[in-house]
């Protein structure tokens, strides 16, 4: 046994390399080895890595699942996969086939890969301390209902997801039972359901991402302690579409985000003790729709500009605070010139309350009658929530 077990080897796969197939290279690799895959298309069915190795592609190295197989399964820790192209994962109704699936893997990295027509793209199960960075995923949306998620995490912790681009999957990024993970700088565009989706996940952060043209931007459900900062939510249009859908969320922060051209900017149900500040709400149908079962949320220092409705609710009761926001619809005055309006602003139009109950009444939106009713209601509120007012509306747009 004179073989050097300390220094790692490089194993070359390709026409000119010592290995013809990736499978044979994986089989003879030991912990710490590096497999380099030369340019070419490799059709080798389902591959499995069970040692701490690095699998690197030279440009043009493609692993093809021939629409039959899950391509790469990783069942070891400390594995790195980078610069490979994965294509044509087999669709399975029963199993969540993925281009790369990590099972009980710690400290692994998936970096700078391309995924085309993958069912699920990158799938992590019971894994921790992994990094997913710089990958580009595009699914085939010909039959969208059978497409899987782009980056899918189930029962994971301490994962970093950075600078990936995900298009035309079911959910761009999906978290179920995930803790202490960070999602930064990703572009999640044109996905069938959500750009990003949290279920039963705690203590996660998503910052500086773009969610554009998805059926809905982000859904945060049955989850607590999520920080949502500096993201852009754009063009999420449709009957059940939102920038953010909050359902049963507590103790979270939504700060410094931009909501532009969405049907609804933020839809909140059963949501409490959250801080929503320093956001821009531009040209949405509804900027904020907050249901009466939501309590103790604080909206402050936000800009509400050019929305058809700034705030809508479904009850006269209100247990939330709106304070010191800028409202482009505010028509009050500022006699003492301190930058704060002298009369409170009521962001809930009577009409928005009506269409919560009778959606078809929306056809009257631009009618004179509605303007008259809204004007009367703003002078003597009879139906809109009495306490839902901003006592310190800003006269100028907040920086």
């Amino acid at each position, binding site marked *: 046994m004179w073989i050097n077990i300390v220094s790692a080897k490089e194993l070359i796969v390709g026409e000119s390399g010592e290995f013809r197939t990736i499978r044979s290279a994986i089989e003879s690799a030991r912990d710490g080895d590096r497999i380099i895959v030369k340019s070419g298309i490799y059709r080798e069915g389902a591959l499995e890595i069970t040692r701490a190795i690095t699998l690197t592609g030279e440009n043009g190295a493609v692993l093809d699942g021939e629409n039959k197989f899950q391509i790469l399964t990783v069942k070891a820790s400390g594995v790195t996969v980078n610069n490979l192209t994965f294509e044509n994962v087999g669709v399975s*109704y*029963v199993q*969540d086939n993925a281009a790369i699936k990590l099972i009980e893997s710690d400290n692994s990295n998936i970096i700078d890969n391309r995924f085309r027509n993958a069912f699920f793209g990158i799938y992590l199960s019971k894994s921790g301390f992994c990094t997913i960075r710089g990958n580009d995923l595009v699914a085939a949306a010909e039959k*969208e*209902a*059978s497409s899987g998620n782009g980056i899918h995490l*189930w029962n994971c912790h301490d994962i970093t997801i950075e600078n990936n681009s995900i298009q035309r999957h*079911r*959910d761009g990024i999906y978290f*179920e039972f995930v803790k202490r993970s960070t999602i930064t700088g990703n572009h999640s565009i044109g996905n*069938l*359901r*959500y750009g990003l989706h949290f*279920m*039963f996940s705690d203590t996660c952060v998503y910052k500086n991402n773009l969610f554009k043209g998805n*059926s*809905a931007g982000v*859904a945060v*459900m049955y989850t607590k302690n999520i920080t949502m900062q500096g993201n852009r939510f754009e063009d999420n249009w*449709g*009957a*059940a579409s939102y920038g953010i*859908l909050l*359902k049963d969320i507590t103790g979270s922060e939504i700060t410094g985000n931009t909501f532009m051209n969405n049907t609804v900017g933020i*839809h909140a*149900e059963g949501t409490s003790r959250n801080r929503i500040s320093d956001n821009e709400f531009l040209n949405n149908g509804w900027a904020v729709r907050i249901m009466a079962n939501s309590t103790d949320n604080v909206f402050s220092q936000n800009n509400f500009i050019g929305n058809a409705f700034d705030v809508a609710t479904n009850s006269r009761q209100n247990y939330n605070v709106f304070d010191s926001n800028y409202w482009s619809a505010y028509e009050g005055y500022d006699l003492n010139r301190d930058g704060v309006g002298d009369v409170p602003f009521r962001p809930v139009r009577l009409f928005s309350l009506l269409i919560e109950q009778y959606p078809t009444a929306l056809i009257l939106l631009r009618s004179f009658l509605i303007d008259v009713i809204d004007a009367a209601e703003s002078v003597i509120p009879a139906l809109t929530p009495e306490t839902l007012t901003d006592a310190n509306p800003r006269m100028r747009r907040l920086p």
Partner: protein
Amino acid sequence: MKTYWWLISLIIIGCNRQPEGIQYGHDACAHCRMIIADEKFGSELITQKGKIYKFDSIECLAAYLGQIPDNEIHSMWITDFKNPGKWIRTDEAQFLQSTNIPSPMGMFLSGYADVNDARSMQTQFDGDVLDWQQVKVRVESHHTNK
């Protein structure tokens, strides 16, 4: 006389309420508000008056039952896991709860038209084969234990 028969047959068709296709990726679940995206789990409830509620999972349909009085329910339907798009009445369906088959709302429930399908899935994936009554009990206790 001919027109008369047309009328009668129209009325019969009108009373024979059928589930309506779900627009996947578009329709929202009446219970959890999620957009319904997985055609293996789509479910529906039809009321006596003909209103249709759509759900993204069997567990959402079962959890919604408290919101509608029993005597107003006309029928409840789920999708066959083996043949997405095929509707089965909940009281004629077989269910499998198996932690190896994740469902949209985390209760691992899938539904089958044929008891043999449910049994063969059980031998493959483990879990319990249930009828609709047992599903309702499990969903209810799941929600009260939270």
